[in-house]
């Protein structure tokens, strides 16, 4: 069975990258408030901080499971 952390991690890395990229290229502040906050940039970073470790842990678990499967086969 696929390690679920991998698709979840990749999903949030992708969405995080989209939001960070958009936040850099086309900065949008939060509308209707006085403070200037480029929320896409900051929240995109939050998504990346969540998604990247998930991807790494999921990928490592997948790789480990695959090597165990290989060792079992012969």
């Amino acid at each position, binding site marked *: 069975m696929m390690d*679920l952390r991998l698709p979840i991690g990749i*999903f949030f890395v992708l*969405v995080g990258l989209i939001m960070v990229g958009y936040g850099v290229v086309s900065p949008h502040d939060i509308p*209707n408030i006085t403070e200037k906050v480029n929320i896409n940039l900051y929240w*995109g970073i*939050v998504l990346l901080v969540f998604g990247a470790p998930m991807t790494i842990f999921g990928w490592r678990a997948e790789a480990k499971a695959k090597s165990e499967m290989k060792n079992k086969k012969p």
Partner: protein
Amino acid sequence: MVINTLLAAAAATPRSGAIIHLHGIDWAILAVYLLFVVGIGIITGRGSKTSEDFFLSGRSLPAWITGLAFISANLGALEVMGMSQQGYEYGMMTANYYWIGAIPAIVFMGIAMMPFFYGSKVRSVPEFLKKRYNEGARFINAFTFAVFTPAISGISMYALAVVMQDFLGWHFAPSVWVSAVVVLVYTFMGGLTASIYNEVLQFFLIVLGIAPMTIIALIANHGWAHFKKWIATHQLPFLTPDQVAAAAAKPGTAAHQMPATQWMHTFHNTLTQNNPMHITWPGIVLGLGFVLSFSYWCTNFLVVQRALAAKDMNSAQRTPLLAAFPKMIFPFIVILPGLLALPLLPHLFPGNTTVNGHLIPATESFNNVMPLMMARYYPAGLLGLGLTALMASFMSGMAGNVTAFNTVFTYDLYAVFIKPNATDQHYLWVGRIMTIVGIIISVGFAYVVRGQSGIMGYTQTIFGVVNAPLIAVFLLGMFATFTTPAGGLWGLLVGTATSVTLWVIRSYPGLPLWHHYNNNTTGAFWGAVWAFCAGAGATIVVSLFTKKKKDEELVGLVYQLTPKPPQDANLPWWKKPIVLGVLALVLTLIINLLFW
């Protein structure tokens, strides 16, 4: 009842033009999400080779996955929007649905009931009733569940389509069909595993897509301290100009307002009904905290199924226990934005309210405070994430309903009454067909509700009413040896009949009977308590005069007759159910005291 006002408002109000316009980036985020949920369905579909793979994920999943799915399956779009609506309407009292109305029941389920559900190797909740009581008890539970589950899913589908129509200008049919087809693809291919895997993705998406609203609402309020100052100087609820005029026309008529500080508490002034929900503490504790909450969290197959998919007993027990922790912080994500919206979007009223002689549209009512706040404070980009989160919450709820429906139909109705003793591959095939049927019924019901909106409120209320007294029969089945098959069956029948009768009495104020309350919430809480008493009473009385099963048939099903499993001394503390349960209860108590 939470949702009924929202649904009624959605149905009663005229449609206006789109008020949210999506940009390319918003569409991109939505597209990535749809791609991933379908992809997860395709990948997990390769592992579904037997009926147990399809219906119960081969009982192979770790606790953190089933635990998050346990919450997510219950977290429909209406839950997210309904809770923020109640945050605006009633304030922190709404958190009682979590801190009193969920956590204690979830902990009880994990520690006390799961050993019997998982240990008896049943495949569904109705099957437990068959083993403990008889075929009749199974049929009643399975039939009501199979009838109502796709209907509830259809109602949710309708309500989301209406929100999408109101706010985004999407047409009804594409909104319904696109989401239905996506859910169909992944549940058809991957069964429960696809549903659970996507529910976990959806859980994180809901949290990360909606949590920014709390942060932004705090910024917009210039901080918590500033918000509390506003609360300290205002009266709530907001009065419509019509209500103000009516009060002015009749001097001495009290306008029904109270200090807004009431909105900051869960139990303040519950000795009387002088609180935002107009309910008293015994109703909250007994009706919501015990009967309704335990009947839902401990017996509803939609949530129990997630725990049955766990890989071993310890994981099954930890499924609800791990779910309790995120569940206790959910009020800060879904209720707090509604509360914080009070100063930001003042003078919102229910959708079916008349203001200056005009029925206010859904897009200007507090029923839709969450999408309204998104429209106001989410810029392009974050808006795509937020709307995708709403879509995700809808899909997780729908897939949860469909996977529970196909399992109960196949195992408890088809394999018992239509075609017993068929091959496993045959039941796997039936399960896949019923996945399609369940979704078609849901879509069909969404269209029925669209044409006849009164049906939806009744359907939801009746389902709640039917389920209210279930816990009586389960508790007496699991923790008493004297209860008999006939006792369990009559307990179900009498409990449900009492619940429905009391609801009918409450619904017709003209009936000269005692069971009337000055608001629906109080009525529902006390109706559940009396139905519980009737169900428990009937089970006990009938059991005293009928034949019980042999003790050896009840091993694994009844506490006193089941050998205690050896305790694994090597388990780390964070894997011990009792430690997790006590920790969850202590934290919930602390949060309750903070908002007392």
